[in-house]
């Protein structure tokens, strides 16, 4: 047992470092807000962190394929707008709205994937142009901030439903499904295509199909993030998605996902997203202007990447 733990620890040194950082942040958080471990706070925090965790999961999926998704924020905003503009009255309507928003996000992801896979266009250019396209579609669906989410749903989501933290459950289900996928050949194919496209093709994988599937899956994660954000805030805003592009990349990078594809674990990304979320909240506690958030997020990204490059270079030499 002990041996297994040391072996696991040796293979995951960067994850352990991230975990330690997270613990430090949690202790600091407890200092400012002593109700941290109460059910109410856990529910609120999970509602607040869900969009970033799921968006980062989407970004990770694309990055594992060796790509990058600069349209993530736009797709998130699109899903949010579709969900909130559908006039949902009862539970059935809410499910329809969710399915609709999810379908739109998956379709957007699949289009990105098809352009990357079949057109031979680099992912940066495709997704940058796509961010323009999806941002425009969002503005057509919802020109001004607004939309409507049933108040009961917002209440249950943010304050717990019979004592259950719905957002936490949603994240757990999404990550559980990812874990399940990882054990199938489709999950393996994702890593294979990202790690070595030629090798994967030569081994008989349909690399283009895998890419489209990966981008569509990323769209599903992003769509869920958008729906979560709409329920959390009770309405939709066509431009609110923008910061998620950078933050999802930052969370993935912090979590140890390689830019060149095929390397990294989803659990790292989740830890990375939690670190970024907690750090942002801590910043608010210290009382400095929320305007500094963007500055801090940018700095985190650069420092994380520089540290990672520095450490891996040390290890390689």
């Amino acid at each position, binding site marked *: 047992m002990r041996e297994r733990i040391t072996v696991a620890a040796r293979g995951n040194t960067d994850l352990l470092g991230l975990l330690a950082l997270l613990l430090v942040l949690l202790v600091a958080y407890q200092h400012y807000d002593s109700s941290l471990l109460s059910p109410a706070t856990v529910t609120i925090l999970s509602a607040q962190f869900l969009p970033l965790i799921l968006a980062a999961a989407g970004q990770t999926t694309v990055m594992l394929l060796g790509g*990058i998704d600069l349209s993530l924020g736009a797709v998130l905003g699109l899903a949010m707008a579709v969900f909130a503009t559908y006039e949902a009255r009862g539970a059935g309507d809410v499910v329809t709205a969710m399915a609709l928003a999810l379908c739109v996000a998956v379709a957007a992801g699949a289009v990105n994937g098809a*352009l990357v896979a079949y*057109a*031979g*266009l*680099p992912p*940066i*250019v*495709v997704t*940058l*142009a*796509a*961010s*323009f*396209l*999806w*941002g*425009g*579609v*969002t*503005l*057509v*669906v919802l*020109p001004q901030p607004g939309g409507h989410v049933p108040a009961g749903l917002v209440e249950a989501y943010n304050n717990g439903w019979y004592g259950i933290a719905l957002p936490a459950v949603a994240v757990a289900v999404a990550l559980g499904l990812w874990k399940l996928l990882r054990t199938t050949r489709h999950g393996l194919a994702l890593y294979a295509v990202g790690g070595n496209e030629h090798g994967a093709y030569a081994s008989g994988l349909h690399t283009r199909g895998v890419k489209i599937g990966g981008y569509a899956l990323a769209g599903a994660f992003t769509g869920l993030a958008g729906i979560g954000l709409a329920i959390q805030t009770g309405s939709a805003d066509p431009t609110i998605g923008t*910061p998620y*592009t*950078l933050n999802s*990349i930052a969370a993935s*990078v912090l979590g140890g996902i390689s*830019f060149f594809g095929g390397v990294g674990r989803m659990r790292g990304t989740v830890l990375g997203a939690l670190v970024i979320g907690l750090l942002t909240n801590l910043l608010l506690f210290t009382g400095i*202007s929320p*305007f*500094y*958030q*963007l*500055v*801090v*997020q*940018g*700095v985190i*990204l*650069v420092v994380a*990447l*520089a540290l990672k*490059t*520095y450490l891996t*270079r040390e290890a390689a030499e």
Partner: protein
Amino acid sequence: MSGLVSVAALRGSRPVWAFGVLAVTWLAAILFAHGFDSVANFRYLVQTASFLGIVAVGQTLVVMMSGIDLSVSGVVALSAVVCAKVASGTGGGATGITVALLLSALVGAVNAGGVVWLRVPPMVMTLATGTILSGALLVYTNGSPSSAHVPLLDSLANDRLLGVPWAFVLWLGVAAVAFWLLHLSRTGRYAFALGAGHDAARASGVPLGATAFTAYVSCALLAGVAGLVLLGFTGTSSLTMGNPYQLLSIASVVLGGTSILGGRGHLLGTVGGALLLTLLTALLTSWNLSEGVRQVVLGILIIGLLLVYARERRT
């Protein structure tokens, strides 16, 4: 014989394609759209194309060495906002312009430093500095940027030299200098070499640091210049005024026939790309479409154009 060779070379050259598509689109606009056949319209078009064009020229320098600058939108806003604030405050227009350009160059140096020394991928480094910039501008202006009337910038953006808008003259000047830098100078050869094969170029002694600093600082400086001209044009500054230039400058470069992976392309193609995109934007505006629809159509057009002639050979 040599004539045949040059025709074949022209047909295979992507920058020539850019001007070809531009000519066809322009002809179609004159024939089918209302108001595109007047001299005033032509003048207005090249004037507005200059704002994008100046940014795109800088972007070309960075893309050629297989970098990318996603912080140009932040720098455009930075230089306009800072210049407006300084000029409307105690300092004069000259101080404002100097401070704005110095800050822009500083951002470029930070980008280059991150790419060279910290070895952060250019896309992430510049995305991060862009985000930091927009946060810093929020803090600096407290959310409400000021407007300013700087006579020098005003005349630079709106006045004409022998009927040609000064902004366009400035753009051509900038393009000429960048042409020399990229295609005639030693630094340009280095940039091409780094773009074509990073490791091979390093192994043959190409100075990565100096080349990267030249490219990123020039790019940021040009984005700063564009911000200043834009400030002169509109008379006000805003935190989001640079946003369109992020995608459009990269699209101009790629539509101008430069490979987004670097090492292949021509600076003059970018001039054609910027003119083409401005023309398309003007066409869409003339059709009275809503903001969202316009963005959708432009996005689809850009993707379509990329599909037609900017595909990378599968490696």
